[in-house]
Every structure is written in structure tokens, then in C-alpha cells.
């Protein structure tokens, strides 16, 4: 592993570290909003992986300038524009669900929700949410 190898792959390794911080936040934290933020970080770092794949050293942005130039690869940019939309959509839906869970359970901590469910499981079965409203 020569120096240029390490330098060549350092970008990817840093992106992988970001991915793992995001994944760890999602998996380990109990707060529902924190999970959504963790999911955001995880997805953004995947976007960075795609984009740093397409970069050519000495290349410029893939917008034709008439002069013959080396351009970076436009395809990962197109894929990521779609993936960012998917990320925003998932975040919006996740936050909407968090708001509804707060209405129904009055808490957004996973263990408190679990406790409420277990206690209800053995209590009366039905009591649908609008019974509370």
C-alpha cells in the first residue's frame, strides 16, 4: 500500500467513516428524531461515495464550455439528484410519523413507547388512538 494508494483511497475511507457514524446513530439511539437525522447522515454519505467516484483529477464540472476540456463523469450526478429526492421524501415521511406517534403515545422515546405497548398489551386490547383525542 504505497503512499499514493492511501492518498487515493483516503476520500473513500472518510466517506465510509461518515456512513458508519450515520448507521450507528440510527441503530443505537432510541429517540425517533435522532434516528431520522442519523438516516440523513447515512444517505448523504452514500451520495458523497457516488460523487467522489465520478471525479477526474484536473477535470471540471460537466457543463460544456466549448473549449476542449476534461470533464468529470455526469452520470453519478444524475443518480444522486434522484437519490437526494428519495432522501428528502423519506425524511418528510419519517417526521410525519414521529408527529403522529407523539399524538398517540405522548412520547418519542422508543423504550417508553415499548413500555406503553407492553402495558397496553396486557391491559384492554382495543382503545384506538381517537379514543384519546
Amino acid at each position, binding site marked *: 500500500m504505497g503512499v499514493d494508494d492511501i492518498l487515493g483511497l483516503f476520500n473513500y475511507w472518510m466517506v465510509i467513516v461518515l456512513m458508519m457514524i450515520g448507521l450507528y446513530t440510527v441503530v443505537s439511539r432510541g429517540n425517533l428524531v435522532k*434516528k431520522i437525522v442519523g438516516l440523513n447522515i*447515512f444517505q448523504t454519505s452514500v451520495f458523497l461515495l457516488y460523487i467522489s467516484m465520478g471525479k477526474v483529477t484536473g477535470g471540471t464540472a460537466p457543463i460544456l464550455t466549448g473549449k476542449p476540456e476534461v470533464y468529470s463523469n455526469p452520470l453519478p450526478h444524475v443518480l444522486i439528484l434522484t437519490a437526494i429526492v428519495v432522501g428528502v421524501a423519506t425524511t418528510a415521511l*419519517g417526521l410525519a410519523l414521529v408527529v*403522529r406517534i407523539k399524538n398517540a403515545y405522548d412520547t418519542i422515546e422508543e423504550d417508553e413507547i415499548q413500555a406503553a405497548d407492553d402495558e397496553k398489551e396486557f391491559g384492554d386490547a382495543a382503545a*384506538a388512538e381517537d379514543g384519546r383525542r
Partner: protein
Amino acid sequence: MIAAHLPILQVVVPLIAAPLSVFCRRGSTAWALTFGVSIAALAISMALLGQVLDRGTLSYELGDWAAPWGIEYRVDAANALVLLIISGISTVVLPYARVSIAHEIEPHNQTLFYTCYLLCLTGLLGMVITGDAFNAFVFLEISSLSTYVLVAMGAKRDRRALTAAYTYLVMGTIGATFFVIGVGLLYMMTGTLNMADLAERIPAIGANRTLVVAFAFIVTGLGLKLALFPMHLWLPNAYAFAPSAVTVFLAATATKAAVYLLLRFLFTIFGTTFPTFEPTLTYLLLPLAVIAMFAASTVAIFQVDIKRMLAYSSIAQLGYMVLGMSFATVTGLTSTILHLFNHALMKGALFMALGAVVMRFGDATIDTMRGLGRVMPWTMAAFVAGGLSLIGMPLTVGFISKWYLVAAALESGLWPIAVLVVASSLLAVIYIWRVVEAAYFDDPPEGVTAGEAPPALLIPTWTLIGANIYFGIDASLTTRVAGEAARVLLGTAS
């Protein structure tokens, strides 16, 4: 002229119908539009199956751009059959849904509910028919996002639907992101996203650590999506607390599309010659499938809520599919693809019967089922027929898939696996018998008068049961298509 554009019409007709349904004032007009579109989708998928059977693989280039540059749709025997399952089940579920949804969803939400249903249908169809890896991810997300919302619509009946939807969202998004990482690594090593192009270029690169990691991430991502054994935690709650019609549609189609995608990536793109293909199938998928069959069935026996029981039984049935796949032989694949079709019929009928019970009593726990044989005779009869098919009694579709699975196991010389398959069917007998015993041998709680489910629920249930039995007896069509699909996937096509 239309015949040439069938592949794209299959996806675009429901896609355009979704925004149109937002303009409908009342739920019933939205339902009418959805039902019409679903029938059109069924007709298109039948026509496609016909074209595929006599002309082989179809290819459709979007925007007339050549394959690796533009997006290309490839339809062969495998995805033509899965398209037929999805649109067929959707057409049967919709008349059932009209009554069941009117009962379980607030009136002002119904119009948008059908919009979400159409989007889920579009996502599933688009995911199965596409020949482009990234396009499959986009439509996978469309179907997943609409599924999270459909599951959350069950909150009117039970607030746990919200937490079920949230867990499903988090695990589904992690699965989809793993899938995207895998596709990204594939793209990085080959430079193309078109599945056929990938299939050519991957063997050329040979043993490469990045491709091996891409293989692992794609299998893990799709495994999460189809609730393979260790990653199945989201499925029981999602199916138990979703509205009944949604559970019927999801149980019969959603995981099938993920199984198809896994089949497509494993066999068409990576191919059997891929270095880690053999070890992963025999040392990872095979044991996981066997554990899934036994663990899920045993857990199903102790469930109070019958819907959760059937959800766990779905996980066991998925174990059968993955088991068939892991033999990597033509008969093994045929049994998996057959089971895709048969399981849709079985589970659809069972969940429909339960939906009728839920509509009448508010929930479907074991003590609600007490004495139901007399209170709702037709519904319980349907449940029993579905249960028999699940166990794999002769003259039902369940028997056909079990037969091919056992044949495949014996053909690969793994006779202990064949014994395990039969043993796990016995577990299925136990949890079905538990319900039958409560329904027919206990007397109903007093004050419960005989009140059969409305015909709108019974007719679709019994059509599925009829299909269960018809395809159990005359299985020539399904086995022919499944065999053709297996040969295409294994690349030994005629």
C-alpha cells in the same frame, strides 16, 4: 401499434392514474378509477406473458436511446409471471378493499388512500419490469414509501400501526441504502447500470474484492427488504396492524417483488460462476432458510393475534422460496418461482378471511375466533381451505410447490433437507389446527348472533380459494411458465 408499447404501458398507466385520483371528489370515484386501472394492468400483463411465451425476451428502450446509455425494459418469463401475480392479486383485492376500507379508514382519507395504493402498485410493477439497476432502486423506493403510509393508515384501529410503520420505514430505508451501495460499487467496477450489460462485464473482471462486497451488500439489502430470517423484525407488526385490505395486498405481492429482484441479481447479473455465489448460497442462504422455516413456524404457534400468526407463517414460507433458490438448479428455481405464485394465492385468501372477521368483531385474536364456524360459516370454510393449501394438502397449490421443493432437494442429493421441509409442514398443521379447533369445537360467546360477512368480501375470498384449487389440480400453465423462467434465469434458455 399498442402491442409494441405494452412494457411501458404496464407501469405508466397506474403511474398516471395516481395523480388523476387526487382530483376525484369522493372515495368511490377514486376506487372506480383504481379498479379500472388494475384491470387494465392485469390485461397488459396477460398480453405480455403471451408475447414472452411465443417470442422470448422483449426489450423496450425508453426515449429510443440505445441500451447502456438510456434505460431499457427487459421482459422475460420470470418477470412476466411476477407482473401477472401483482396485477392479478391487485384486481382481486380491490372489490374486497372497497367495503373493508370504507369500514377501517376515515372517509376524508379514502381518496388519497387509493392514490397511495396506485403508487404502491406502480412501484411494484416498475421494480419488477425494469432492466436498469438504478431504476429498480427508484421504483423500489416508490413502492416502499407508499407501503409505509398504507401500513400507518391502520392507526384508526390500533395506534401500534404507527410504530410498526416507523420501524418498517427505518429498516426499509437501511435495506434500500445497502442496495444502493451495492449497485454503486457494481457501477464503479463496470461503468454501466444496465442489467444485461452488467451480466456481460462482471465475469470479465473476475475475482475482485469490490465486486464481492457489492454482492454482499446487495444480498443483505434485498434480504432486509424480503424479511429473510434474521432481518424480519419489521414484518409481523407491519402486517398485523395494517388495514386488512393492505395486509392482503402486501402479503401477496410486496415481498414477492423483492424475492424476484434477488433472483434477478443473483442469477442474471452475478451468475453462477461468480466466486462467492456458490458459498453464499450453500453456507448462508440455505441454513438461514431452514432456520426461518422452523423458528418462524414455532413462534407462529404461540401467537394470540391470528394476523401476526399468519405474518410469521409468511416468513416461514419465504424460507421455502429462499431454500428453493439456494439449490441453484432448474427444479430448485422452478419451485421458488412456483411458490411465488402459489403463496400469493394462499396468503391472499387467508388474510381476506381474517379481514372479514376483523370487520365484524374489530380484531382477530384466538378468542374472537371461538365458535366462528357457526357464526360465519363461509368465511371460516375459506380459512380452512386456505389453511389446507398452506399445509400442502394434495389438490391444492401448496402441494404443488412442496412437491417441486422436495423434488429439487432430492435431486441435489440433500435428502435431510427434504425431510426438514416435510417436518416444517407439520408445524404448519399445528398452528392451523389451533384456529380450526377454536372455530368449530368451541361454542361462540353468548349473545353473538350468526352474521355472515357481506358478499363483497366473500366473493373475492372464494375466487382466490377457487384459484387455489384450480391451479392445484391443473398446474400445467404455472409449471410451464415457472420452468421457462428458471431456464432463462440460469441462462440455459432454449
